[in-house]
């Protein structure tokens, strides 16, 4: 477990290093091992050459010691011969020894390293010096025959001591030789050992080098190649829009790249999902639309998509219609030119709208509103057309019905106006003869008997009543038919009341009543039709005069009431029975007709007044008084009156 963990830690440490570091390690590892192997090789070869040097030196020491001994032995033998013979030719070896010994000794001195050998060599050097001095003494003693004989004993002694010295030296040399042999053996062994070690080292180096290369390859593989392959695979998956193979969150470039790719993939998939969801929603909405046929055409006009609404309106199912040209929705008379014209217009202007007859699968026609929209891709190439069709048959039918109804109403209204106009003419023409001739008779009445005079009066009275009846009736009808137009203007109520007062004074006076006029403020202005307003006031005043039999006055006044102007006509007569009030403004409902048979009137005055006031957006009403009656009506007040404006009434 711990090992696994630590190995994981190492792996993680390795993968987390940057690529440059990994590359350095992978290249440096075999190089380092190679370099180490070369150093060890160099060291081994150095050691071997040093060991061989030692061996060579041992041989040189051996040789030189032998030579020292040989030179001295031969010199001693020569000296002895010289002593015996006195012939100087025996001194030859001695001279040779004298000449060569110093150089040989020096060589030895330089070569010797071993301490024990040097000790012995020092002794040999002293022995050599003594030997040479001994030989020199002997040669001097035996220089002349005379001397020689006298020095025979001394020579003998000298020879003996020389011999002792030489023997000692020989012993030393043998010791040295022995020592050198030991040393030589040791060095030989060392050389062998170094060589063996070198071989071993080489083999180990080779092994390590091999392992290092393998390690480098392994590291390269685990750290880079395998992960790059995963990355490549992931890139392919990314391109295909599939889920990526999970990669550990390593800190190096590949790891970062992997994570980025992972994030990009997640983002891409989220977007794709959102797009798919949105498309799905959109598709569901489009497919679910019932009242609109929505379908898509390719650039040539072939149907490539079809919704439920289209199926409902046109009758074809998607399977039946996909792949067909859309011109089959058009009736024969337009099929040849309209479809191509619509596409042309749509591709030129972006959209084309049309309203007209189309045919269903069963051949029946329907009135359609069609909008064709050209669809372009990002590069601006035409991809096709979206077509939205709406069945307007019902609407067209109701529009048609509405149009007919409107036309009928207009015709009816025209007919009514025409009727009114004709009636007016037809009724007035004979009446005008009656009244005209009656008036002529009236003008000549002094020529008639009283009975005939009375007859003429009655004809005229009835004729005038009939005329006012016709006038009121036509007025009401024409207002109800909307035939007479209302021309509203600013009407100064003070002026209007004064006019009415002047005009109606004789009527009021003839009823023996006082006509009281309460003038309003001069700036009380109503928005009204002057003629109609005057007519209403006159009507009310005439009524008040007519019906006030017991009172003494008629009062005409006007006041401002909120946004309205109120005109009041009051009298102090009998008033009106409360039960009659609801029927006041009903046509031909003259109140108390039975009891007040003497009162003239058409019974249309209040009804007409009501219609006139209402046509000017006012109200008419009645208020009971303690004594008498109060009729009033309102008119909209004019919004603003200029101070300096002083409207002048034409006569």
């Amino acid at each position, binding site marked *: 477990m711990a090992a696994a963990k630590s190995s994981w830690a190492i792996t993680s440490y390795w993968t987390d290093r940057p690529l440059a570091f990994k590359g350095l390690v992978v290249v440096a590892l075999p190089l380092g091992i190679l370099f180490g192997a070369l150093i060890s090789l160099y060291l081994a070869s150095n050691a071997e050459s040093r060991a061989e040097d030692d061996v060579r030196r041992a041989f040189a020491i051996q040789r030189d010691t032998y030579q020292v001994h040989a030179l001295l032995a031969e010199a001693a033998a020569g000296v002895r011969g010289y002593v015996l013979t006195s012939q100087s030719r025996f001194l030859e070896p001695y001279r040779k020894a004298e000449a060569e010994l110093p150089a040989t000794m020096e060589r030895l001195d330089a070569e010797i390293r071993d301490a024990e050998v040097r000790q012995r060599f020092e002794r040999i050097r002293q022995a050599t010096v003594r030997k040479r001095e001994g030989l020199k003494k002997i040669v001097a003693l035996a220089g002349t025959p005379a001397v020689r004989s006298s020095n025979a004993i001394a020579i003998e002694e000298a020879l003996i001591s020389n011999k002792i010295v030489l023997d000692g030296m020989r012993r030393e040399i043998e010791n040295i030789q022995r020592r050198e042999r030991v040393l030589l053996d040791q060095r030989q062994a060392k050389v062998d050992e170094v060589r063996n070690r070198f071989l071993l080292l080489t083999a180990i180096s080779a092994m390590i080098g091999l392992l290092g290369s393998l390690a480098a390859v392994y590291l390269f593989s685990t750290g880079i190649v395998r992960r790059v392959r995963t990355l490549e695979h992931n890139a392919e998956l990314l391109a295909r829009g599939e889920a990526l193979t999970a990669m550990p969150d390593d800190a190096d470039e590949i790891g970062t790249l992997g994570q980025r790719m992972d994030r990009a993939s997640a983002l891409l998939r989220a977007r794709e999902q959102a797009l798919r969801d949105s498309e799905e929603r959109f598709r569901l909405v489009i497919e679910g639309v019932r009242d609109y046929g929505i379908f898509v055409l390719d650039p040539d006009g072939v149907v490539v998509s079809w919704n439920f609404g289209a199926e409902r309106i046109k009758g074809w199912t998607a399977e039946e219609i996909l792949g067909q040209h859309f011109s089959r929705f058009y009736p024969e008379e337009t099929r040849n030119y309209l479809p191509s014209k619509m596409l042309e217009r749509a591709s030129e202007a972006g959209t084309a709208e049309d309203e007209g007859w189309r045919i269903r699968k069963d051949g029946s026609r329907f009135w359609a509103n069609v909008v064709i929209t050209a669809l372009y891709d990002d590069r601006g190439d035409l991809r096709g057309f979206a077509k939205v069709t709406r069945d307007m048959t019902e609407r067209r039918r109701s529009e048609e019905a509405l149009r007919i109804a409107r036309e009928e109403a207009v015709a009816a209204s025209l007919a009514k106006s025409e009727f009114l*106009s004709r009636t*007016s*003419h037809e*009724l*007035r*023409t*004979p*009446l*005008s*003869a*009656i*009244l*005209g*001739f009656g*008036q*002529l008779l009236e*003008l000549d009445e002094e020529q008639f008997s009283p009975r005939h005079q009375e007859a003429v009066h009655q004809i005229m009275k009835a*004729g005038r009543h009939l*005329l006012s009846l016709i006038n009121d009736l036509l007025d009401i009808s024409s207002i109800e038919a909307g035939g*007479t137009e209302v021309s509203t203007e600013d009407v100064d109520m003070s002026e209007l009341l004064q006019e009415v007062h002047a005009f109606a004074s004789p009527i009021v006076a003839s009823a023996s009543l006082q006509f009281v006029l309460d003038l309003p403020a001069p700036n009380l202005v109503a928005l009204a039709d002057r003629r109609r307003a005057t007519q209403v006031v006159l009507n009310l005043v005439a009524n008040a005069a007519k019906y006030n039999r017991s009172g003494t006055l008629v009062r005409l006044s006007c006041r401002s009431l909120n946004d309205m102007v109120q005109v009041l006509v009051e009298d102090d007569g009998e008033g009106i029975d409360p039960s009659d009030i609801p029927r006041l403004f009903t046509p031909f409902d003259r109140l108390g007709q039975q009891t007040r048979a003497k009162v003239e009137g058409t019974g249309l005055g209040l009804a007409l007044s009501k219609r006139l006031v209402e046509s000017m957006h006012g109200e008419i009403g009645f208020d009971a008084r303690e004594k008498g009656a109060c009729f009033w009506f309102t008119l909209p007040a004019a919004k603003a009156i200029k101070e300096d404006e002083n409207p002048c009434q034409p006569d």
Partner: protein
Amino acid sequence: MPARLISNKELLSRRILAIDDEETNVLLLANVLDREGYRDVHCLTNPEEALEMYIKLSPDLVLLDLMMPKVDGFQLLEAFSRHDQPDEFRPVLVLTADTTLQTRRRALALGAKDFVAKPFDVIEVALRISNLLETRILYERLRQG
């Protein structure tokens, strides 16, 4: 009555043409004019003959009904004003039962000089007739200079 520039005799000798498709109306007008003392009065009930008579008689005043079959008063008003010289003052008094504002405006715009609603007051009509004739006579005097 104020002093008059024109003698009664001159006034009453003037020629008047009354046009109405209703015989009763024409008769009434004839009676009114007769009672006033006009002597040169011509009556016509067929409006198709109106222009011909107008040209033939060259009346000083025309009494014209508007609502007539075949040729109505408006057409006649147009025809009369087309026929007359521009500086001629030959008044037309329109007598009609159609008292709507539009009709009055239209008739006056087409050259009618006065307008009386039917049924009319006999005295009023007589006064308007004499007024119009007086105006014509004064106009003639002005032209003659």
